[in-house]
């Protein structure tokens, strides 16, 4: 299975993401620089975390407007699996590939710790390796993870099963509305999430809870 990782200046989780994808697919992902307008034929495109363009203007705002994102949008339209983690999620929202926005954490503090995630919908390509209602461990590290969407959008996300991860009761680290930690597009092939599943892949990480997510997205057995 082939994958690609989008690179923008200021991202810093690209190495972790490349390592995770290499472990899971058995081959190194392609890397695609922000000015590139073509993405190779792959099964999964990932926008990793970090602080693209220093979070200037709004987190993800500048990165979302780089040429590579038009290529990502085109691939998403064609049905290719696209996943944005942390800053990658912020970029997907700013690019209009997912609905809503991520704002400064309600506590105003940067949070860097492990949270518990509830799998809200296990019927997506990304979450098929989990059970609905299952609680998994996952680290978070962000300053702007406070998910917001207007009431109408929230209703749609809830009723269409587009909320795939919620912070399990009592662990919401950022004030996200409805404890939302990750959502998919209405087409189901674009996922955005604040937590970092790429950091729970190998036993040496202290757990492998993130593995099924990548395996699911790539259609592999976990």
């Amino acid at each position, binding site marked *: 299975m082939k994958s690609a990782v989008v690179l923008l200046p200021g991202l810093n989780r690209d190495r972790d993401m490349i390592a995770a994808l290499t472990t899971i697919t058995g081959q190194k992902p392609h890397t695609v620089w922000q000015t590139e307008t073509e993405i190779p034929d792959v099964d999964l495109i990932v926008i990793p975390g970090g602080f693209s363009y220093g979070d200037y*203007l*709004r987190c993800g*705002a500048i990165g979302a*407007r780089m040429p590579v994102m038009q290529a990502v949008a085109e691939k998403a339209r064609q049905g290719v699996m696209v996943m944005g983690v942390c800053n990658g999620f912020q970029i997907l*929202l*700013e690019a209009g590939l997912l*609905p*809503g*926005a991520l*704002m*400064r*954490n*309600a*506590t*105003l503090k940067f949070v860097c710790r492990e949270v518990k995630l509830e799998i809200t919908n296990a019927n997506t390509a990304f979450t098929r390796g989990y059970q609905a209602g299952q609680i998994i461990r996952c680290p978070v590290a962000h300053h702007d993870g*406070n998910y*917001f*969407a*207007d009431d109408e959008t929230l209703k749609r996300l809830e009723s269409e099963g587009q909320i795939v991860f919620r912070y399990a009761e009592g662990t919401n680290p950022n*004030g996200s509305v409805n404890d939302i930690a990750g959502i998919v597009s209405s087409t189901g092939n674009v996922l955005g999430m604040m937590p970092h599943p790429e950091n729970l892949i190998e036993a040496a990480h202290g757990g492998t809870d993130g593995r099924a997510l990548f395996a699911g997205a790539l259609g592999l057995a976990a």
Partner: protein
Amino acid sequence: MAIRARVTVTLKNGVLDPQGKAIEGALSTLGFAGVGQVRQGKVFDIELEGTDKAKAETDLTAMCEKLLANTVIEDYAVEIAG
């Protein structure tokens, strides 16, 4: 000749503004009595070539829609200096 414009971007009503809240708290800590709600926003001072104000207004609106504001959570206002 250049046109000078000021774009103001503010959070929409109903969107939680934790930074505004923190500033509100700091103002009362400093002893400013009677401070109501504080909302934080952004100001962009932009210079544009030419003298066509109508075109400038159209361009600035497009800039707001495409980049300067995130219309999911923010409103914007364009002001062109006289």
